[in-house]
């Protein structure tokens, strides 16, 4: 089992490959790995409650997947931290750095 940190900067409305990235997260979790998905930039858009993309909510409901949304990116897009999909938590760039320096963590930016 390994720790994976998947940083998603793209939204699924402009880039369909964002959905492939969600699938990678799901598959890694299914294989027994601990996965953190850190949403940043337009990657936070599908985390807004009621967004017409259920995959982020599905990921957040998976026990071995943690879904975080960058607070700076949320504020830039007028998305309140109180208006996120269930299971998605607002986070900070400090948290992202803490995750990056955890030994053994495999980080992938998309």
């Amino acid at each position: 089992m390994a720790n994976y940190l998947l940083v998603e900067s793209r939204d699924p409305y402009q880039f369909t490959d964002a959905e492939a990235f969600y699938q990678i997260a799901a598959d890694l979790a299914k294989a027994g790995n601990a996965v953190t998905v850190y949403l940043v930039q337009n990657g936070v858009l599908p985390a807004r409650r009621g967004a017409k993309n259920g995959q982020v909510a599905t990921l957040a409901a998976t026990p071995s997947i943690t879904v975080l949304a960058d607070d700076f990116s949320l504020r830039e897009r007028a998305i309140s931290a109180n208006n996120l999909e269930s299971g998605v938590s607002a986070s900070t760039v400090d948290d992202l750095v803490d995750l990056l320096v955890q030994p053994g963590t495999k980080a992938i930016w998309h």
Partner: protein
Amino acid sequence: MTTSQEKTLTVALMDPPYESEASTTALRIIDAALRKGISVNVFAYEGAVNLTMKGQAAHPNPVKGTSAEEQDHPTTARFISGLFGMSGEAAKLDWAVCGLCADERGAGDWIEGPRRGSPGDFYKFTQESVNTLIIGAR
């Protein structure tokens, strides 16, 4: 893993300035790491060699009728100069610019801090870091 590895992060940047929000995010990550006492190695290649160009100038906004001073647009070179100001014994910033990429673009006139490098530097960076974040262009 050595202590220095545990306290060093490598970031590879590819985007040119003012093209992508990823540049801003990368600078935020580097800033946060340095503030936490974590050293950062940066390998800037392709368009990212322009991030540190000394001659970058803020511009006025003719639509709003405001001057460059009033607009106070941050340049990436100014941002990065500030990051070098944070670099010290507790946390060091090492910024290697891909020499061939810079030559192709005539982009060798940098602010104080960055140095000329090569993909070999990137390999060394990865070996001495706890993690490497590769932020590619689209």
